[in-house]
């Protein structure tokens, strides 16, 4: 850049307003940083220059990207440790990797093993790194990949970015020692106590078996080739049981994390409201892997919480998809939805209402409070031109009037109602359809047999097979991912590796397919609409294949 321009930029920088606050759902910088690191973070994560302008990344042939699309984080990831993409690796660019040589002749490596790290590369200096970013030339003088854009950063911005890279992944990681990995699982006070016990039985036994199979923490193994480092650590589980009203949960969680620092949160159990937990994990930068929640927080721009599915919100999408077919036939004009105010049905009903109105139906929501008497009255209101949706638990389904509603079509939430064990009265079963956000029983049998066998051997009572199978699956995913991470214990990196590896997996429990990617937080994206067959079997309705709303 011309000297005059550089001066102008420097002056603009001095005059620049303070950095605007990041959006509420984006994690604030974890360190208490110098202003430089904060500026560098805005460049790295959002492609935002100190002036407030968008950074421009120029690629060959006139292809360029702006702002958030040009941000370093897109390729080098929040951890700065890069990724595998296609047949290439995007290299790690934390200070540790850039400013140290990765020489094979070292006896003791204090760099964690990252596949994409360039071997035998000389360390960068501030000058050569600035040249790489501006001119696309590596420390060896050779051009960098065509994937790597060129960025016209002024000296102050460059210094800030380099300061940020030096700050990445250098802190010692909470919950990780040479011998022990600490994890937590979170249970909200409104979670079902029986489900809590069922989940904890799976978690405790999984951890116990993991530790029994590991021997004492082995010394670090080094290799001069590409092998992974295998280090065995003891896994320890902390159960964080929340109490009292939801607006106190975040401070309880802060206290838990301060007194029992953990590397990540595994599984967990929610009731009506998971939002305070989700937001805490996001603020704290704490990975939360696949909590058992039927009403998740939908925020695809968030990073730290991974969910198996959107739960009852997915079910609303499945039913909406069916309504689009119904809208073609004149059978249903009005949708009636019944739910309890003290449960998650309301959120699902609101989601479905939006889609139903778009399909041209009128929607009537019938929230119920405590007494069952209201339920019968609400059902009795429906007529032959209505669709009826029951967002109800087994105890409500069981006391429905023996005679089915006069509605043209009844749908029931599989998740809330107990899936194929939903205790609908007999006369309802032939016509009611169930929203079913899992693979069908006969298709998933082989995959689910494995955890069922394991529960049997460990003598774990199976009281909620789907939730317990999901918990077991989450543990397996954590274990596999950590194996591949070797000794690179970085919280963000754990999430990134799961994003990258999940789709490979063949054993997916109750789900036919699991897949994630940057910007995707829900691993299973579809479901079926099914009909009851016999007393407790379910079968697929004629119209429904796997639906992805």
């Amino acid at each position, binding site marked *: 850049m011309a000297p005059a321009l550089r001066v102008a930029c420097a002056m603009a920088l001095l005059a620049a307003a303070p950095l605007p606050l990041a959006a509420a759902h984006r994690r604030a910088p974890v360190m208490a940083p110098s202003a430089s690191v904060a500026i560098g973070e805005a460049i790295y994560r959002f492609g935002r220059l100190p002036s407030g302008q968008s950074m421009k990344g120029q690629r060959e042939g006139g*292809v360029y990207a702006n702002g958030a699309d040009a941000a370093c984080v897109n390729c080098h990831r929040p951890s700065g440790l890069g990724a595998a993409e296609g*047949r290439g690796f995007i290299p790690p660019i934390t200070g540790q990797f850039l400013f140290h040589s990765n020489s094979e002749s070292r006896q003791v490596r204090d760099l964690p093993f990252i596949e994409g790290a360039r071997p035998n590369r000389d360390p960068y200096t501030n000058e050569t790194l600035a040249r790489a970013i501006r001119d696309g030339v590596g420390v060896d003088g050779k*051009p960098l990949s065509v994937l790597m854009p060129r960025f016209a950063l002024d000296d102050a911005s460059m210094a800030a970015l380099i300061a940020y890279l030096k700050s990445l992944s250098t802190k010692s990681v909470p919950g990780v020692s040479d011998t022990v990995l600490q994890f937590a699982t979170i249970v909200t006070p409104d979670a079902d106590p029986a489900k809590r016990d069922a989940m904890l039985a799976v978690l405790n036994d999984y951890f116990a078996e993991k530790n029994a199979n590991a021997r004492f923490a082995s010394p670090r193994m080094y290799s001069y080739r590409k092998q992974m480092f295998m280090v065995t650590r003891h896994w320890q589980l902390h159960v964080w049981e929340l109490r009292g009203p939801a607006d106190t949960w975040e401070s309880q969680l802060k206290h838990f994390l301060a007194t029992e620092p953990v590397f990540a949160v595994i599984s967990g159990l929610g009731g009506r409201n998971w939002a305070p937990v989700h937001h805490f994990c996001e603020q704290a930068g704490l990975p939360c892997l696949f909590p058992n929640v039927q009403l998740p927080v939908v925020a695809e721009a968030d990073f730290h919480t991974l969910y198996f599915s959107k739960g009852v919100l997915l079910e609303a999408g499945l039913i909406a998809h069916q309504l689009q077919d119904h809208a073609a036939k004149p059978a249903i004009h009005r949708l009636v939805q019944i739910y309890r105010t003290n449960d998650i049905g309301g959120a699902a009903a609101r989601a479905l209402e939006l889609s139903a109105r778009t399909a041209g139906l009128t929607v009537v929501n019938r929230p119920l409070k405590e007494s069952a008497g209201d339920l019968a009255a609400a059902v009795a209101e429906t007529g032959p031109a209505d669709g009826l949706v029951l967002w109800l638990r087994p105890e409500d389904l069981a006391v429905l009037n023996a005679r089915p509603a006069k509605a043209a079509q009844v749908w029931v939430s599989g998740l809330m109602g107990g899936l194929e064990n939903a205790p609908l009265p007999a006369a309802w079963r032939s016509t009611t359809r169930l929203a079913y956000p899992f693979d069908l029983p006969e298709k998933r049998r082989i995959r689910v047999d494995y955890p069922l066998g394991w529960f049997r051997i460990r003598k774990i009572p199976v009281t909620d097979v789907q939730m317990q199978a999901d918990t077991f699956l989450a543990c397996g995913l954590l274990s596999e991912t950590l194996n591949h991470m070797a000794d690179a214990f970085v919280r963000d990196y754990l999430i990134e590796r799961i994003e990258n590896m999940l789709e490979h997996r063949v054993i997916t429990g109750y789900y036919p397919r699991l897949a994630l990617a940057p910007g995707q937080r829900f691993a299973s994206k579809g479901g079926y609409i099914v009909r009851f067959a016999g007393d407790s079997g379910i079968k697929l309705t004629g119209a429904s294949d796997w639906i992805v709303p």
Partner: protein
Amino acid sequence: MGRCLMLAAGLLALSTPCAFGAGADLAAGPETMHIHDARDRVSVSWVDYKVPAIQLVRADGKAVSLPKELDDGRPVVMNFIYTTCETICPLSSGTFSQFQSRLGAYRKDAHLVSISIDPEQDTPARLREYAKKFHAGPGWSHYTGTVQATSTTLQAFGVFWADKMSHTPVTLMRAAPGKAWMRIDGFVTPDQLLTHYHDMLASR
């Protein structure tokens, strides 16, 4: 030395136009190569792919027959993307964008086709957003579908990756229905694409 062998094998692998099969374990094997070593590895080959008789869903929401979409007489230029991809696809779609605008007077003749390799995530609405981001002009269509339809399509075009994270940069071009496809593996620039395109049409 082991290192040289790895690089050589990697070069070989990248220059062969075979389908990248179950690329599950990225850590092992000589095919993996550092991204900065993969710079100028653009390779061109000709293959007689058969367009599968499959139904996809276009970004406007319409269910369409892929053969009908591709066999309307126009030359086709095709790539494979997913909307949340932040690495390879922005470059590939950015290149398509530049290519389309540089066609100038020839723009209306070329049918640009982008097929999602993440169909469960990439709904028609998301594809429309993605197309807008890359200033897709008329003549550039985006497609999604069921997982089965998509994987059948990818296999038919020799671009089946075990999962979307294993995808590699590939561009396919065909001058007219019935002709062979030009397959370009690697990161092709808009100018290179334009050159290949005109050469292909000239030799039609």
